[in-house]
């Protein structure tokens, strides 16, 4: 294992290269620019291809083409660019093509703000394009976890023949931490030759068709996607649970917000507050069971903390809790960061309110 001190965006790019990613196309947008900048020199070193596309749309379609050859392909962007890419992401899903899509999110809607925010949750988990398809969405909260999840993402994408998303934010992208880098993998695109385009070594076979259009059989495809989603919920949920054994209050947060909350929880527990945490690592599939299994005789409230107003993950939290436990929200948005002082005050106010009502 190689240890380095790296920025989140650059660590993500290096982890993708080490996972065997050999094609990247992207377009400049803050706060993800270090990813294409890094890959513009790094990919040629390992025999890969970097293209700065003429647009976000062209870039996702270059990835669509590259993925069709069995090469591990990736693009990255931020909210406004992801919006433009969603047509292509829908096509990737329909055509059953694996790829990695990275969103380093910023404030929205519109051009919004280049400052960090978590306002792309709904887009990432529910609306990456038309037609009702879903992606596994990973939300790491440290540079090490960015590396680990990026390194494994292509295995999910190829298993499902579906794109995978990694959602971070401008803080995690710019933040430097020490990381252990995994070893270089060299997957061959030939491993995907049962479906990919372009014959290898003159092999004799029938033509391969990769198509996003289904004149017939579309309902069957939709049904199989639905079954696949149920499988994800059963097998692929990643979640970190903390102090749930004695928790009377449960904070839920993902990504950078969960780092701030962790600090608050440790500090408040020292003062006797029984606070736990549920941190979704996969935003989709959402860790519904973690919320379903909370004891409503013991947990007095759930506090959803996000860098989004109103909270977006809060919708999935409420859907999982099914009204058994009150859910409160706190957050900032539009580029205003959370800090432990504000969060502690907000959590204390919520606890006082709940205790006062009892």
């Amino acid at each position, binding site marked *: 294992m190689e240890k380095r001190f790296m920025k989140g965006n650059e660590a993500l790019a290096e982890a993708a290269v080490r996972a065997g990613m050999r094609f990247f196309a992207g377009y400049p947008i803050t706060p993800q620019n270090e990813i294409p900048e890094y890959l513009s020199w790094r990919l040629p070193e390992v025999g890969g291809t970097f293209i700065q596309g003429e647009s976000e749309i062209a870039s996702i379609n270059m990835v*669509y083409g590259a993925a069709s050859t069995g090469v591990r392909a990736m693009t990255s962007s931020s909210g406004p660019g992801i919006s433009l890419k969603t047509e292509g992401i829908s096509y990737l899903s329909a055509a059953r093509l694996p790829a990695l899509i990275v969103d380093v999110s910023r404030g929205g809607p519109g051009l919004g703000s280049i400052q960090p925010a978590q306002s792309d949750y709904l887009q990432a988990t529910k609306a990456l394009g038309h037609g009702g398809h879903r992606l596994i969405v990973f939300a790491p909260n440290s540079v090490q976890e960015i590396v680990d999840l990026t390194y494994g993402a292509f295995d999910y994408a190829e298993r499902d023949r579906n794109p995978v998303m990694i959602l971070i934010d401008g803080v995690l992208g710019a933040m430097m931490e020490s990381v252990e880098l995994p070893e270089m993998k060299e997957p061959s695109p030939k491993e995907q030759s049962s479906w990919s385009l372009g014959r290898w070594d003159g092999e004799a076979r029938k033509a391969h068709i990769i198509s996003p259009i289904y004149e017939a059989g579309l309902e069957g495809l939709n049904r199989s996607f639905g079954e696949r989603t149920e499988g994800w919920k059963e097998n692929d949920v990643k979640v970190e649970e903390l102090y749930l054994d004695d928790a009377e209050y449960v904070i839920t947060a993902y990504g950078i917000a969960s780092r701030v909350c962790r600090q608050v929880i440790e500090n408040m527990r020292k003062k006797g507050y029984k606070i736990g945490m549920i941190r979704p690592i996969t935003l989709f599939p959402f860790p519904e069971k973690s919320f379903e299994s909370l004891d409503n005789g013991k947990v007095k409230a759930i506090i959803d903390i996000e860098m989004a107003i109103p909270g977006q993950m809060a919708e999935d939290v409420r859907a999982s809790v099914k009204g058994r436990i009150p859910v409160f929200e706190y957050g900032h948005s539009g580029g205003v960061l959370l800090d432990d002082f504000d969060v502690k005050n907000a959590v204390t106010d919520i606890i006082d309110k709940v205790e006062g009502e009892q």
Partner: protein
Amino acid sequence: MTDLYQRPVSIFPSASSYCPGCLHATATKIIAEAIDELGQKDNTIFVLPVGCSTQGLVSWDLDIIGSAHGRAPAVATGIKRCRPDCMVLCYQGDGDLASIGLAEILSAANRGENITVIFANNSIFGMTGGQMAPTTLVGQKATTARDGRDPKNTGFPLKMCELIKEFEAPRFVARYSLRTPSGVKQAKAAIIKGMKNQLEGKGFSFIELLTNCPTTWHTDPLGSLDFMEKYTEKYFECKVFADREGRFWE
């Protein structure tokens, strides 16, 4: 005994799904013949657009990918960069290439992508029922231009070859009409040239084919050919716009 003429092996032995009299069918055949003659059937990856020509999915017996509307040159770019050993072709209509896909075709041409783009221009959105295209002629009627195209509102028909020839990278840029047998022969020779440019690693080639749409032009097949002779070919000059030697960056 030798066969002097036969169905190209790069086409499925099935009926064409194009309308009667549609020159897409002719284009489909000569492209397949060109692939056959260069021995590239098992080495071709074909990128299809959105429009009538998406029916290439059921016409060509080749590795094929369907792309989003207008994005074929970007998709082909991704494919060619990953499989430079394969021959990568795009077949696009004028609604696809000259309207929603303008950025992708111009950028791929300017980058000198080592691909071959065949552009079927029938001056109309055929698949969606005859709406005005960027290539619709002045005065030509369309479902979104009931009194005929009026340049005051919509500008003049877009000339793609004339745009693309201005870039330095493209190796071969030419326009042909499929109205006559001699035009078909010349077009096929040009398609072969564009494919050879790619196989020799020279760079981007662009071959525009003037075609028809009897269904949305509301003519019979022969009437559509008369229209092409009288109007289409008068506006869209058929000639070689650029024929450059060597690899584009050298």
